[in-house]
């Protein structure tokens, strides 16, 4: 019988993308962060944002499966009362986007080259001044990584990234509550709707 490998020592990253729907209530982010800290989960990135439903926020969480067991992260997130649903979309067709603002050293000479690169990456120059420019780039993480690499020789002065957001392709819906029955169950996870264990003294 094999063991759950908590740290199998692989060096190559194996990113897993989890999407979580959470109730938009005070303290929910603290609960999630506290869970990650308490269980020693290593998180590559975490983004939170609003959805089309004001009562619900959505998190996109990237974990490196070589360091942290993604299924354990999902199962433990799901245990939090304010987490409505969790889905590992790594194996599903998704659109994923990260956004970076990168401030690069650029004198008039270098600006031309940089502009060309910006075009190729379909990025944008959003601020320009005599010694530097700010570039805005969006896309899958790999694209951002690649652009950063290309900009490094010019001298990156400052950078900030939002972290990944993801959405599954197709017409499936993962950003609102399905209708509930009278017991307050949405039929997602409960088979008999009572949610109650039976006790005896």
């Amino acid at each position, binding site marked *: 019988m094999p063991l759950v490998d908590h740290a199998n020592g692989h060096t190559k990253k194996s990113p897993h993308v989890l999407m979580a729907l959470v109730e938009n209530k005070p303290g929910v982010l603290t609960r999630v962060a506290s869970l990650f800290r308490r269980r020693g989960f290593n998180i590559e990135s975490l983004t939170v944002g609003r959805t089309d439903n004001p009562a619900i926020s959505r998190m996109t969480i990237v974990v490196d499966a070589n360091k942290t067991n993604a299924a354990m992260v999902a*199962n433990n997130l799901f245990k939090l009362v*304010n987490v409505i649903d969790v889905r590992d979309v790594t194996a599903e067709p998704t659109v994923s986007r990260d956004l970076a603002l990168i401030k690069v050293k650029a004198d008039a000479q270098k600006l031309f080259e940089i502009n060309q690169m910006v075009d190729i990456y379909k990025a944008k120059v959003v601020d320009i001044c005599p010694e530097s420019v700010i570039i805005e780039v969006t896309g899958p993480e790999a694209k951002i990584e690649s652009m950063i690499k290309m900009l490094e020789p010019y001298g990156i002065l400052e950078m900030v990234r939002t972290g990944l957001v993801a959405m599954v392709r197709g017409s499936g819906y993962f950003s609102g509550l399905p209708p509930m029955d009278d017991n307050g169950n949405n039929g997602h996870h409960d*088979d008999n709707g009572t*949610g109650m264990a039976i*006790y005896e003294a």
Partner: protein
Amino acid sequence: MKRTGAQIVWESLLQEGVEVVFGYPGGAIMPVYDALLDYPQIHHVLVRHEENAAFAAGGYARASGRVGVCMATSGPGATNLVTGLADAMLDSVPVVAITGQVASYLVGSDAFQETDVTGVTLPVTKHNYLVKDIGELPQVMKEAFYIARSGRPGPVLVDICKDVQFASTDFDYAAIKVRLPGYQPRLRGADEQIRRAADLINASRRPVILAGHGIILSGAHEELRELAERGNIPISTTLLGIGSIPESHPLNLRMMGMHGEAWTNHAIQSADLLIALGMRFDDRVTGNLASYAKNADVIHVDIDPAEINKNVVTDVGIVGDAKAVLGQLLPLVEYRDRTEWFAQIAEWQAEAKARDILAKQDDSLHVPFVLSELQRQIGGQQVTVVTDVGQHQMWTAQYYRTERKNGLLTSGGLGAMGFGIPTAIGASFARPDDEIWVIVGDGGFQMSIPELATIMQERRPIKIAVMRNGYLGMVRQWQELIHGHRYSEVSITSPDLMKIAAAYGMMGLRAETKAEVAEVIAEARSHGGPVLLDFVVEQEVNVYPMVAPGKALNEMWRRPMREREPVASA
């Protein structure tokens, strides 16, 4: 109906069927205590330290299966609850804690006795609430009870601002609907998994059932017994699974793990199938994971999906309530002979019996002797035994063989000293017809002495047996066996327990020799009120078997067969 926040607290408790609350008043919860005077249906027990309110609420819950309730003021009152909540969290005990908080407009201002209690208790509660708006209070009260008792039970804390306690709102508890879209415990197992589990069971030659606390929490005692008898499968229990099946049941191999029975640990290591029911493969249960039950397939039934594959890789994981899942599984299980398997286990048992400390012929008084005498006198009667934490706890698990359903209450996951006496107070309200015994060490007893006053004030006829070995025995044992006999801060003196008993007005009895034990136990049992028993026991006796930390489950230290023989391995 208009009700104040303070009234809503008590009305909600009434609607939830709460009969007793363990608590301690203070500034930020005063409106609630004021309103208590109008609710004589609810009995409030004034403990002597809030930690013990939380333990007592847990004791009530452990003994009844219903939600236990404790109450404290803001700041120091609330922080004192933390140990008891952590205990309830690790052992899945349904508790609702209600704390007062400074007024909502003062929250965040470092007001007098303000502590971020929802922050402090975040990791030791299943869920918690800060109520700053009276409109939310009724809903929160209902959710708190629902969350505490459903699914995998646990403690829920409700922190109520003082102005909310004074404010009023419309209140109709019955009309409130619990709407928790993210909280849907699953009860029935998936049919496909049930079928695969049954196939594994029917094909197994050396199976062992690992029965845990989840059996007790789901009330699956009958189903457990039926599974074992129908399939002819031996059962072993975790510490918290004790009481899920009578200790004398012929298929019960008794406790597994660090201080489990040697034959049970050998059986687990040699098994070809583990059927884990409502247990979480704690490290005290498995020993070294890499060498744990290497040849066994694993079926794991647990209501909490996060437990499956957490420590041990599972071949068939079934998320669901133990009672429901066993109900699905039972019709598919077939009888198998397994003669060889039982013969092998019997051989291990015979070897272990020869090493038993009870087989040792001498006069010195030791804890197993006391416990087996207690066991002999109690037999199958309605007695609940509560332990504290330490050597005496492990010996209770080994030698006090309870026949009563859920007859042993103990702190498993947190292993919190000071647990025994307040837990017994709580249990005594849940089981008024039981005789209640506490087995406690001289260390743990001295953490709980103040609660003797609670016992007297509340007229709880609890029998407290102190195993006075003059040491923090379990730590001393580790220092002896693991730290080369270097004793560091483990020697502990006690006050004169007879004078303590007298000071609190309870009966005191002492036994110093084997010959006195039967008599003092009998006398304590025949006395109608609380009794403090002082057993002066041998100082340096060790609990065996013992799986040293990091060792494989079958690599146990065993009791030497003869005096001064070195500790045996295997």
